[in-house]
């Protein structure tokens, strides 16, 4: 468990921003792993098997969580509006690299992602965020490769539309 927990935590952190939720997901992953150890046939790596359990556990937790209603410009804080505006207008990259600015962006991203479906979140996180190959995402989720591609296509569109709404004045 000590060997694999950093990987499970890293993966669960992609889906949850609160430490308590990440720990809850990781604990559930290891509980499932202990109880289903018999189903691990040793064909793939233990890390791959645990990553599959982590993906499914996180997806189920996301599905059971309540989705946030669609965000509008009025939901944005001053910092968030500032970040979006400066990023949109292409201001100097250095400005956004400070940790405070990153936190504002991370908060905003989480709120935007919370308005999206768990499947959209999953595919955006894995394909666009982690740069995971379509084949790997298909193996992790049990979806077909074409479903992953279509889901990613639609998720990107919906993400762009959600961000565009926040930029429209």
């Amino acid at each position, binding site marked *: *468990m*000590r060997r694999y*927990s*950093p990987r499970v*935590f*890293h993966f*669960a*952190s*992609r889906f949850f*921003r609160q*430490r308590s939720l*990440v*720990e809850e997901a*990781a*604990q559930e992953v*290891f*509980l499932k792993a*202990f*109880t289903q150890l018999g189903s691990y046939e040793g064909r793939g790596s233990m890390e791959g098997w645990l990553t599959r359990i982590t993906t499914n556990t996180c997806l189920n937790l996301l599905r059971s969580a309540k989705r946030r209603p669609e965000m509008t410009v009025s939901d944005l804080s001053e910092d968030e509006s500032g970040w*979006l505006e400066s*990023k*949109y207008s*292409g201001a100097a990259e250095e400005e*956004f690299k400070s940790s405070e600015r*990153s936190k504002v*962006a*991370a908060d*905003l*991203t*989480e709120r*935007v*992602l919370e308005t999206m479906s768990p499947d959209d979140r999953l595919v*955006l*996180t894995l*394909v*666009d*965020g*982690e*740069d995971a190959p379509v084949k790997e995402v298909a193996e992790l989720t049990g979806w077909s490769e074409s479903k992953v*591609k279509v889901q*990613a*296509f*639609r998720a*990107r*569109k919906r*993400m*762009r539309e959600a*961000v*565009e709404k926040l*930029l429209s004045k």
Partner: protein
Amino acid sequence: MSEQHITSILESIRFASLSESDHSRIRAHIASCVDCARAYRVASVSASLLENRLAETFEPSPFFHTRVLAAVREKQNEGPAFARLWRAAGALVSSMAAAVVLFAVLSFGVLDQQSLPTDAPATAYSAEALILDDIEEEQTDGQVLSTLYEADE
């Protein structure tokens, strides 16, 4: 390419995976297309948002492993669902079964006792005295028979 809208490209490829030649072709198009220019910028902002969000990660806390092992032990002690249910309801079911057995034993015992007089030669005492149960002393079979013959004569 410069005439073709680029929104479908932005949706089919991860933004960070666009090559330099993709970017230059896109730039050539958005110079004259306001909608695509906006879409390109928004896609860039979306990619930046994801990048910032995914830069965050958590490490396991020092007590995490202890907590998981405790949870595993608890789950092992719980056992299968049927065993847990049996433990909870076992006493109640056992006492109910004992009550049923006791009731059955008592019922059959009483019935047996009630059926005994039917086997006895009670029908032999057919005179009024016997019917009215006036006989104070228990009579022998011979006495009962002579009583009955006398009544017939």
